[in-house]
């Protein structure tokens, strides 16, 4: 079913909207949730919460890109679930690894964190992504938006894991320079 029709179903308050969303985007949302949570049960719950989130958001929202709209909800719910987990379970998934990697790019004493809104930072990252070659752009977003494991990225990019790691390292170094240039660090 076309995305626009699925959105219409949400606006019509038809429960079919959920089943159509599940058919078309269930696996996609599950992949995002599972990368973050590394637990099938938790991932299933996040996907179900995504449908509920979409149901509550439409109306008033009428997203033009349903996949990214749903992906953002899943990502946010899954990260929140990861945060609220007990410490022993929180160690699982890709978040701890991604955080370790990104720590290098933002390590600077006395950063004005409180004064920077997430929105401003997102625009800064947009400008950074624009400056990258397409391959690097995609790899960075696969890793830090979708939290995709390096091995899976390597497979999708037909590259070795070591090549992906070194490409990501180079991109993070560039990001560090960019953040400094734009005054975020």
């Amino acid at each position, binding site marked *: 079913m076309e995305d626009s029709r699925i959105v219409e179903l949400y606006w019509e308050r038809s429960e079919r909207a959920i089943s159509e969303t599940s058919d078309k985007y269930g696996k996609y949302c599950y992949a995002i949730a599972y990368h973050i949570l590394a637990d099938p049960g938790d991932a299933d719950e996040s996907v179900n919460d995504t449908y509920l989130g979409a149901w509550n958001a439409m109306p008033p929202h009428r997203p033009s890109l349903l996949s*990214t709209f749903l992906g953002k909800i899943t990502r946010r719910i899954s990260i929140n679930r990861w945060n609220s987990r007990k410490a022993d379970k929180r160690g699982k998934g890709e978040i701890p690894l991604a955080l370790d990697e990104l720590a290098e790019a933002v390590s600077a004493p006395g950063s004005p964190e409180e004064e920077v809104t*997430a929105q401003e930072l997102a625009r800064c990252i947009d400008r950074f992504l*624009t400056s990258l070659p397409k391959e690097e752009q995609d790899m960075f977003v696969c890793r*830090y938006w979708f939290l995709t494991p390096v091995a899976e990225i390597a497979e999708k990019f037909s590259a070795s894991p070591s090549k992906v790691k070194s490409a990501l390292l180079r991109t993070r170094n560039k990001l560090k320079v960019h953040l400094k240039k734009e005054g975020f660090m």
Partner: protein
Amino acid sequence: MNAKYLLDAMEGIQDRYIISAQKRLGYIAAEKKARIHSAKRAFAVALAAVLVLICTVAAAMAVSPEFREAIMSLFQLGEVEWVPDVPEEASEVKQITIGGEVSAQYVKVDGSWGTERGQGLLQQLDAEDGQERFFDVVNGGLVEVGVDASEISTAVSWYGRTIHVHLRFFAYNDMLYLYNGYGGSCEEDSMTFVVDPERLGSRADVVLLRGECYGSEADTSWAWVCDLKTGEVWDVLAGCGIERFASIEGVQLSEDLKHALIRGWDGTSGSGMTPYLADLEEKTCIPLSELMGLDIPAAFGSYEAAFYDSNTVLLAIAPLWRPEPSSVWAYHIPSGMVTPTAVNEEGLAKIDSEDAYDWALAQKVDENGSVTIVDLRTGKQVKLEGITATDRCYFKVNSARTKLLWVDWVDNRLNRLGVIDLENRTFKSFERENMELRYNEAVFWLDDNRVATMMNLHSGEPYGSYPAGEYYLCVYEF
């Protein structure tokens, strides 16, 4: 700012970046097959498909005897490599010989290191300014090269805008090296244009300029060629009829600059990106399906096409990175001959190369874990005896496509390392010891004859507990 804040803020990036990554990950629902509009073309394709099927069966029968004959056995060197203890000082080189056949050099290096696509040089990335420095291993020492790099400025015109492009490069041993972070971009009237330089095969006289634009007027790509002596830019794709597409992507140019491969979209919703071969001299652009007589599905991720060399195009359905069985055809451009070189093969996977577009060789693993190397241009197969594929059994081909490096990689420990010489039909390897808990982060061809590995000297240590990256670089010549 902390990493968590950055990770959270990523949520708000523009949708186009998310969609592009979705495509790469295969998360976008498959698009419908491209429709063939003309009955004449449909008939031509159907007829050609029948011919190809006949050829396919014939070729499969022809390939089998060769498969049975070509077997290469592993020769394990009697001597085990005892990796020397790491010296205190960086850049101090140690040298040994393993089993009287393999020379090995070891050097401790600081900072972030990598390789420039297996083309003979090591790269060091400056953590402060992100700039690269290039080094060669000469006579047991690290020697910086490229200190006399040239810089030129030029420009391309696209959609009525001028994009200024700046390049920094040098040639070393007849090979071109380009510095990252150069190129050009501009943003005008809700449009963004980005131009990135890329090496064009082994050519040191010209560089490919890959352009991408997106915004209110278009979302497409293009390619130009820049003469590195004069800075002159040639719009090699102009006049071939490529302008008719609403969007193109994945432009590849043959090294002799006579042909280009593109994926083109006609602007019809759901029609997918179709592969085309453009003749840059005759100024034509014809669907690969028509040239090869194959029905090529247009959905993203359903096919892959690349130049094997200037005269040959390889086509795979499905691409070798997908789990389903793949078939591969070689299309000889001058004669128009189509040769099936892999037929519905299960477990066929691309052998890694330093060039993203290069997939000349593939590996095939059967249910017993036996490994066979497949030449995707000829279909010739070589079965490797003495090794069994495990999760991290890893091959990488050198740029001359004459040798493969092989590593047995378990838990980041590179326990065995070997080289398969496809020309001389030898396969030698050795075992490695004394690596403690050091992780091997990379293994690559330093050039066509030398293999290098990089060990992280701070494996397992928490981030921040050591001042900077320190690696142990091991260089082997078989």
